[in-house]
């Protein structure tokens, strides 16, 4: 691990964290607004989070 690698890995984690955090936050808000749709919202949230996570891991392997 060299310094650019570590910085790159850090940036990736920050980016992925922000993305997944935003998805989670927005899903919470959506569930609070419409508790009856919580099942659908959760599913959509997990899929979106998984997609971001996938990109994050792909970039981490490259770093």
């Amino acid at each position, binding site marked *: 691990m060299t310094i650019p*690698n570590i910085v790159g890995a850090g940036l990736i984690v920050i980016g992925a964290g922000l993305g997944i955090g935003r998805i989670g936050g927005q899903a919470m808000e959506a569930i609070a607004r419409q508790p009856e749709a919580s099942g659908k919202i959760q599913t959509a949230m*997990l899929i979106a989070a998984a997609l971001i996570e996938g990109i994050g891991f792909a970039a981490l*392997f490259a770093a």
Partner: protein
Amino acid sequence: MAAGILSAQDHGAQEVETGAHDLKTEIKEYIDHHLLDSHDFTLYSYTTDAGEHEYIGFPLPVILWDNGLKVFSSAKLKHGEGVAEVDGNYYTLYHNKIYRTDAEGTINFGAHHEEETHEEDAFGENLVVDDAHPTNVKPLDFSITKNVVFIMLVGLLMFFMFRGVANNYKKNSLPKGMGRVLEPLVLFVRDEIAIPNIGEHKYKRYMSYLLTVFFFVWIINLLGLTPLGVNVTNNIAVTFALALITYLITTFSGNKNYWKHIFWMPGVPAPMKIILAPIELLGTFIKPFSLMIRLYANITAGHVVLMSIIGLMFIFKNWIGSPLSFVLAFALSLLELLVAALQAYIFTMLSALYFGMAVEEDHH
């Protein structure tokens, strides 16, 4: 929960017993070793006072194709310390791979092996990078390795478990024993994963695959958290095979509408259609590829972090280190239990989503 604690203790115990020359490299090597598949099933190992390595476990069959089938027990390889002789050929292990060698077990390297490249890491420490590959002949390896054993075991377990449940339903519509646990899970896969994504009319064809992949990934992920030290889903070949099956099913069940959306996207201007076609075609490969990477990377990352935290105990070497490492490892083990189920769910979910795309009817 118990599995998490046990695995923490077990992994810890292993590291004490390896006897450290350089603690950091020792821990790194140990983690690397844990992530790899192996030709024998070893629960733990230790170094005797005489400096010999003792392994507690049992050997597995090695099956090679090297101008004919060669079958022998991995006990002959002595964990890379011995040379196995089979029909006048000699084989040895080098970095977990089998090479053909001579009676002394010599491993030949390319010319550049002598000049080790030095590289500085981020903390200014000098690293020796030795990436020379042996030039010995590498026979085709079809061995029953640790991963293969556990794939077979989980396959058998699932076969008997679900057969028992299925037979029970023939006699009585109320589930009994194992069925009480499995029924809600099967219904979950059907009602929450298959029907919403594939559709009311076509989901039945895909249920067998979705259920199989869900339970297989989940059970094998959970086994990875036990002290047995199995890591099947952090072998990229295994996740590749799973993703390949999803890809094949998607491709072969694709209807006219699916292919039209790939090669001639309706509702966009003609120049865009030409640009979109290669992107969409590439997308069909990227989807299973991301399935493969996601499962592999999640489980690998979980194991690496867990073992690094346990490794902290040996770096701190004071009264803070052990409780800290124990609490963190315990919390992380609980998280990994969630991840094990979540990854199985995500894999099944996305597979169902892709099947749904492939069989979707034209709405226009």
